[in-house]
């Protein structure tokens, strides 16, 4: 059963929020659960907050390197916090757009 908070929010076919202004911390918790992360720890939040700040400043989701450099953690640690494709996963949870190339 989908959690109540999620039903009011529109997502695209890949699970990214369509209206980014609807993001809340409670919503992030629900999206994370859908992404297989049961609990968001302080470490998770540090990364989510950093990504939201970068998103606001640059208009884009940060790259893995932006995150590891900006926060000061290793790539392996980032993968252990957000398994299997952290760039996309964090972008979804933080209510940002998906990472894109030029084409």
């Amino acid at each position, binding site marked *: 059963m989908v959690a109540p908070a999620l039903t009011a929010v529109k997502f695209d076919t*890949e699970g990214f929020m369509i209206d980014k202004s609807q993001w809340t911390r409670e919503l992030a918790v629900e999206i994370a659960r859908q992404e297989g992360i049961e609990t968001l720890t302080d470490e998770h939040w540090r990364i989510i907050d950093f990504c939201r700040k970068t998103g606001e400043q*640059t208009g*884009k989701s940060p*790259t*893995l*390197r932006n995150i590891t*450099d900006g926060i000061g953690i290793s*790539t*392996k640690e980032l*993968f252990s916090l957000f*398994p*299997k*494709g952290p*760039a*996309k996963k964090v972008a979804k949870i933080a209510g940002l757009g*998906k*990472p*894109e*190339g*030029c*084409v």
Partner: protein
Amino acid sequence: MKTFLILGAGTGGTMVANKMADALDPQEWRIIIVDKDQMHYYQPGFLFIPFGIYRPEDIVKPKRNLLPKRVEVIFDDIELIEPDKNKVTLLDKKTINYDYLVIATGSYIYPDETPGLRDGWHKNIFDFYTPAGAAKLYQFLETWQGGRFVLNVTEMPIKCPVAPLEFMMLADWFFQMRGIRNKVELVYATPLPGAFTKPVCSTMLAGVLKTKNITVHPEFNIMEVDNNKQVIRSYDETEVPYDVLVSIPLNKGAEVIKHSGMGDSLNFIPTNKTTLQSEKWQNVFIIGDAGNVPTSKAGSVVHFMLDILVENILSHMKGQEMRAAFDGHANCYIETGFNKAVLIDFNYEIEPLPGTFPLPGVGPFTLLGESVVNHWGKLAFKWIYWNILLKGLDIPTVHSHMSMSGKKPVPAIINS
């Protein structure tokens, strides 16, 4: 006498030298350009070397021949840039004090940054981003009888971001021509969420790789190469086996940028994306791959940056406001094999859209669609590069800013 210094005599440096040689009074200004290599390679040609379409000697000219006579050319490595002191020191310890500096030092591959990548280097693991790598791969493919052929992109950004796609599609064509396509498995492992990430490109080109039987492994973030087991391994422990691996290693700016404390963690210099001025030093401007502007690292981008960069530098010299604004314009051919190519044209704000280029209706090039004319356009471009682009000349009907002329806007595509 004032000094206008350009670091790097590749695509960007050469174009800037040619423009400034015309714009600056020789009684007032010395123009100096520094590069560590004497030979200028047409880098878009590297893609064709492994498949025997070009040889390295077809795509190289001496740098000195491409630079105007009044420009002093120094062939040496750069040891240190000290922008707070307006000074550059070369490897032979010679120092150059400058009034204005343009950094055009480009972007390079760093295979040593991925553990294990060097283990089979140029034996069963290749790059095609250097003439040597491309030539070695050509020799290897001459006698290769088939197997698992994997192309991996280490991390974004890379220069020429469409090259991996072109490479895979040319490989499909190449192996079909050789009659061994059914013995080859083509796999493209990319850190991006897909081969195509922009909505319109995805809609219009998604089927292309599938038709060519190219398997895509998206979100593959390579951690290391295990050449004993012949797999590439990602940070989440996924393994992709290979018989031959073509790698686009980590791309970073020049080492001297790091050494001089001027770059980000990939040695790219923080650059104002509109004016192309350094974010930190007023008399320093950056052209091409050396900067960190949020558009592709590509030769066409350098061409579109040129007029804006030169106009802004000249304004700045006169103490005037810099009004020229770069819009991130890029225009790239994507070879799709069988003498066809796709053309894409985009900027910071607008993703690649279908239509015709540069003229509405007439084209002659097709945007986001395969055509033979596009392919011949790509090949003809080599002449345009050497004879028109590098000299800082304009291509008729093609403007620095991206134009919507000839393009179909997005709602029309979604509703059709």
